[in-house]
């Protein structure tokens, strides 16, 4: 029994380290900040801030898992939000009543996001474009669409029945937070328990091996980028319902933060490794740090310094721990095999 637990811990070592760091940080912050961190108000505001960023982070996680970075996630979310806002404010499809407009806005935003995701996937699958550079192009293109539509100005005045979705609560917990947890659990089950999920790991780990193991690489790439598009679309809708407006440039800082969350969450940028639970844990850790910075009144520049440093620092730590693990494996092998001399 003990051995079983030990092997389980060994296998998920990084995840458990991350969970303990998060809990330790939570306890540490309780001593340092006390009530200003754990007041009901701050906890609730954290629960409101987590989802929009969380969805972008989950989308980025999927792109990491297949060994590419999707730069267009934030632009996709943003432009989908602008589409929805244009319908909700009656600029597009005027004459719809409010409830129909909301349905149309959600459908158009999600449709656009799926289409954007599909286009990314199509470029990667059918044209063999490197994901990083393909999504750099579509990132400029998608935000260019939003820019051309709005001229860089904000679309404001969304109907209150739509924005109430962003502030709705379920037993005191924000509805959007519940949705985020649900989606994260579903994604985790897909990744760990379903064929599609296993195929994502195989495809991400070694594409050439996947191709010759009867995995349809092209279909995989398109499917994953469509899922990324869906997650980005949800994030876009949450952002506009929370901010009560849509504007090009909302959430641009999420690009760095979502990369950071994936790296902290143990998703290897070369693909094929990582768990959704790690990313969710890292999102919570980031939100706690972010709240602490707000309480300490750090300038945006100081935040940039800390996020940038953390990204490099965590990658350095991962590198060292990986090298150590490899050395232990090599030593074990040496002990088991008799020496030739």
């Amino acid at each position, binding site marked *: 029994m003990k051995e079983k637990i030990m092997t389980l811990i060994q296998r998920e070592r990084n995840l458990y380290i991350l969970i303990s760091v998060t809990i330790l940080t939570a306890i540490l912050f309780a001593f340092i900040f006390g009530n200003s961190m754990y007041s009901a108000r701050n906890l609730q505001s954290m629960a409101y801030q987590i989802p929009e960023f969380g969805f972008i982070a989950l989308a980025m996680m999927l792109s990491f898992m297949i060994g590419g*970075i999707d730069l267009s996630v934030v632009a996709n979310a943003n432009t989908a939000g602008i589409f929805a806002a244009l319908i909700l404010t009656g600029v597009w499809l005027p004459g719809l009543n409010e409830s129909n407009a909301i349905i149309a806005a959600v459908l158009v935003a999600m449709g656009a996001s799926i289409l954007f995701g599909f286009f990314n996937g199509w*470029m990667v699958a059918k*044209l*063999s*474009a*490197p994901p*990083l*550079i*393909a999504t*750099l*192009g*579509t*990132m*400029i*293109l*998608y*935000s*260019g*669409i939003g*820019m*051309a539509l*709005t*001229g*860089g100005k904000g679309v404001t005045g969304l109907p209150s029945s739509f924005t109430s979705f962003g502030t709705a609560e379920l037993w005191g917990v924000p509805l959007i937070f519940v949705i985020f947890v649900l989606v994260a659990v579903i994604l985790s089950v897909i990744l760990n328990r379903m064929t599609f999920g296993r195929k994502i790991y195989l495809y991400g780990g070694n*594409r*050439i091996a996947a*191709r010759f193991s009867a995995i349809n*690489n092209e279909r995989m790439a398109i499917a994953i980028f469509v899922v990324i598009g869906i997650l980005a679309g949800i994030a876009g809708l949450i952002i506009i319902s929370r901010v009560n407006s849509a504007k090009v440039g909302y959430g641009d800082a999420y*690009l*760095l933060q979502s*990369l*950071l969350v994936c*790296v902290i969450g143990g998703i290897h*940028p*070369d693909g094929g490794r990582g768990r959704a639970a790690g990313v969710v844990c890292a999102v919570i850790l980031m939100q706690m740090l972010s709240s602490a910075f707000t309480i300490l009144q750090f*300038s945006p*520049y*100081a*935040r*940039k*310094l*800390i*996020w*940038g*440093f953390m*990204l*490099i620092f965590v*990658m*350095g730590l991962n*590198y060292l721990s990986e090298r150590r693990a490899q050395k232990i494996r090599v030593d074990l092998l040496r002990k088991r095999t008799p020496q030739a001399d």
Partner: protein
Amino acid sequence: MIRHKIVTGSELILILIIVLYCIIVAVVNPAFWGFETLFDIIRSSSTAIIVALGLLVVMLSGGIDVSFMSIALFGSYTAAYMMITYKIDSLPFAFVVATLIGIILGMINALLVNWLKLPAFIITLGTQNFFHGVMTTFISDKTYGAGVIPESLSRFGSSTIFKVNTEMGVMGLTTSAIPVFLLICLTWFILYRTSIGRGVVALGNSEESAIRSGFDPLKIRLFAYGYIGALAGIMGVIYIAQVNAVYPNKLVGDELMIIAGAVIGGTKITGGSGKILGVVLGILIIYLLNNTLIFLGLSSSWNKLFIGTLLVISVAVTSFQARVKNRKNLIFTE
């Protein structure tokens, strides 16, 4: 001996696009045709071309750098800050300080990329924010306007090589065209006539074969990232001379457009292939669109849409060509 053609197919297409676009704009709006537009584009694209040359070297080596604008800001801001606080009014001082800072920061990138063996994009995104944060937190985050900028800098920014009389008044070609030209020659010489330059291309094509032919990847990376750092420092000084002010938050964020220009110019992100002429043409197209869409009656908010479309088409065409070629030879890269 293999003869390298100076102008290849893809560059010819870029030139054709530029010529066609110019004809269309000139037909719609004859005001486009004149020295003002030409000098304006050369002036605004000169800084971008300088860093794009450095980016070409890094991308040829199989890496990428998104921190160069942060480095440019760090170097030039620090140089200007020192000049203002210690009352040093000398242009060479600004260039030397900015270039040295650029080389040091660039080499930090190189060490991290070489050591961590992770995608250079993520590493340099981290250092981009880190460098910018260090500068604004530990040096200063104030803005210095036209009044306090050292005179030698602002004089350099507004100086011209020669002047032409036009209907709009006297127009001059900016002096920054000289460093651009010199750096193009230097980059060409390094890439095609020195051993380290060939090493850069070799490393980008295949790290394993570069090591086996005796190149040290660390040395090559130190050179490539140090080179873009040095160019970024030079570019930063020219930039503050041109705008005649020092801001703590400009430049950073513009790096993606430079990468877009390099990719439109045919530089491959996988390394080993890319040309100086292509990169210069790619940057020129971007600045041509930025500066002249207004002549077509489109506001500047359309820039990104056009550049994005151009970039997507260019990526699509080049990757599809490579795919067809690879499939024909039964090479599977994915």
